[in-house]
């Protein structure tokens, strides 16, 4: 392989299309993963994220487009020739092989001939013997780094879940792949172990410095561990950005709705003659640069909804419908005064200060809200003061 030039990314997917039968599963996918980065493919089930991962691995062929790993175009290569490592959802350890044999298999498959592998115990070839020694050393080394030396001779059934995960990662990393693919490796674990296993993956990934694509439907997981997140919706990359960008600066209403727990509040609104936005009794002082009378969606994160005890007449009065206490903070579910449909969810540090049935005045800071046009695309909203300043 030629030397790696500067600016070569670990993975670069260009214009990938894929359809099964009549339905398009992936449409025009572009994705770049930098060296040593963790990039999450985040999306609901059926969004095509696993298919994309499998196309990168070579387990699935794209109808169109290219996959480049490091400097190499691997689009036409079979999985075994791509030098990618993958950790499967079920981990997919070979059940009849010990941890050591599982980890060494990729190396043995590559460095030894089939005859040498089969007759290995007979020690017929001196070259094979020295290769076997190298492989043993490599496995010992990786086992030490993963802290599984003590259990490496057990079969998978006799390992704990965490040990199994490490063996699976060891098998993936042992052959110095440039790219590690993880297909929802945590989804079979329960909540507590899950966070632990997640941290472990990040730690190992940082220690080995290998670039990593992580498929998940869990946005908390994606935001917590990724350098970049690709939000996939309906077979497209809806947005690619850092976790902060994805959360604070979503490009569409769909992304805003998909990311964040609880789901972002969305209010139907319209622009009035003066350019301000009215939505569900709130008046938001922004300039969206669209004609009066146009409908807009106002989206606001629960932590930006402010509940005030004061008597500011300009703020609408809402009724507390339900309190959700999470300990460190809480959620206040707010409904209209008539108590009908739930309107807003507010995150409050002192949620318990309220009682269901309380009537409170609520405000939404115009600069914290996000605005979307009717087709769901983002509208840049400038607070009035800044807009006035910008106009000079």
């Amino acid at each position, binding site marked *: 392989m030629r030397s790696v030039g500067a600016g070569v990314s670990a993975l670069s997917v260009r214009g990938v299309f894929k359809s099964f039968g009549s339905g398009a599963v992936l449409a025009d996918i572009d994705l770049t993963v930098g060296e040593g980065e963790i990039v999450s493919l985040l999306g609901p089930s059926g969004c095509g994220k696993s298919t994309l991962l499998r196309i990168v691995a070579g387990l699935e062929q794209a109808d169109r487009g290219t996959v480049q790993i490091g400097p190499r175009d691997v689009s036409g290569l*079979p999985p*075994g020739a791509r030098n990618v490592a993958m950790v499967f959802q079920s981990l997919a350890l070979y059940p009849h092989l010990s941890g050591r044999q599982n980890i060494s*298999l990729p190396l043995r498959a590559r460095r030894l001939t089939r005859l040498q592998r089969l007759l290995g115990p007979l020690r017929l070839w001196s070259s094979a013997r020295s290769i076997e020694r190298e492989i043993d050393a490599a496995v010992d080394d990786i086992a030490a780094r993963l802290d599984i030396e003590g259990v490496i001779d057990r079969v998978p059934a006799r390992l704990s879940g965490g040990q199994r995960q490490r063996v699976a990662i060891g098998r993936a990393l042992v052959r110095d792949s440039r790219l590690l693919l993880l297909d929802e490796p945590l989804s079979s674990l329960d909540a507590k172990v899950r966070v632990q296993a997640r941290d472990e993956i990040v730690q190992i990934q940082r220690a080995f410095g290998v670039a990593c694509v992580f498929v998940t439907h869990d946005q908390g997981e994606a935001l917590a561990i990724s350098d970049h997140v690709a939000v996939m919706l309906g077979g497209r990359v809806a947005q690619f950005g850092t976790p902060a960008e994805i959360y604070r600066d979503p490009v569409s209403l769909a992304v805003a709705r998909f990311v964040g727990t609880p789901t972002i509040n969305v209010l139907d609104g319209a622009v009035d003659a003066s350019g301000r936005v009215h939505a569900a009794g709130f008046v938001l002082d922004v300039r969206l640069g669209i004609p009066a009378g146009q409908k807009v969606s106002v989206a606001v994160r629960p932590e930006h909804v402010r509940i005030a005890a004061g008597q500011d007449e300009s703020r609408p009065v809402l009724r507390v419908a339900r309190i959700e206490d999470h300990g460190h903070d809480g959620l206040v579910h707010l409904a209209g005064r008539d108590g009908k449909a739930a309107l807003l969810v507010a995150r409050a540090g002192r949620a318990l200060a309220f009682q269901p049935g309380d009537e409170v005045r609520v405000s939404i800071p115009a600069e914290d809200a996000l605005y979307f046009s009717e087709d769901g695309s983002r509208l840049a909203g400038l607070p009035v003061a800044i807009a006035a300043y910008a106009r000079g």
Partner: protein
Amino acid sequence: MPAAEVQVPRWRETVAGPYLMLAPAVLLLVVMILVPLALVAATAFTDWHLGGGPPQFVGFETFRTLLEDQDFQIAVWNTTRYVGLVVPATTLMGLAVALLIAECGRGQALYRMIFFLPSVATLAAMSVAWQMLLSPSVGAVPQVLRLLGFAPGNWLQDPHAALPALAMIGIWSEAGFAMLFFLAGLKTVPHELVEAIALDGRGSVVDRLWHVTLPHLAPVTVFVLVFSSIHALRVFDTVAIITRGGPEKATLVALYFIYQEAFSLFRTNLAAAATVLFIAVVLALSLVQLYVMRLGRSR
């Protein structure tokens, strides 16, 4: 009437209820199997011949006679050879055919049926068919071979070829059954393991077979080995119809020996003793099978 209102008859709720319901099956088991078995076992310890005088208890004398009987020794040896020929070939054929069928996309059902058909056909009828197929003058197989320039022998009359010929028919009739088990096993190969080996290995079929498919099929293979052994031990139809134990006792197998002793030579006690030994062997194999299945389940 709604199901909830169905009255359970009073007798079913008594202590005897369950036993009453078991009774028909138990009765059949006792009358058809246990009693005959006990009678056979008892006969084995007497000097009773069909049509002879009243039986005398002779202890293990019958077994001693049996073990020294040259025909019995031949039958044991022939049966062993037959099992040794049929079992490995049946298993390998079943596995190979299953692997091929599992790989072919279209026509799977058709091929499965074609290969399974011999297993459902009546072996007695098939024996007649094979006898004709192999008949040296008019049989299809020798004729085709002659056309191809070979000189086929009269296998069924050749002491060296007769047992292998019957073994071939045995394999033909059993392989489909084995195939069915292997096919079922292949259906449960974990998909992610197949993909893991595609990434870990060099993408060859051999890697996949060696590291994923065959280890996964190991329990099924043991099961197939055991049941095809039991089936091969019980070979009778082909022998009785095609060769009648000949030529020169080359196809005298265990069951045919028992049949001859009991119904041609009327040495009933000898036949009974041989039956007892035969059942012991089959029982032992069944226990192995049970053990293996339990092992498979506990994994």
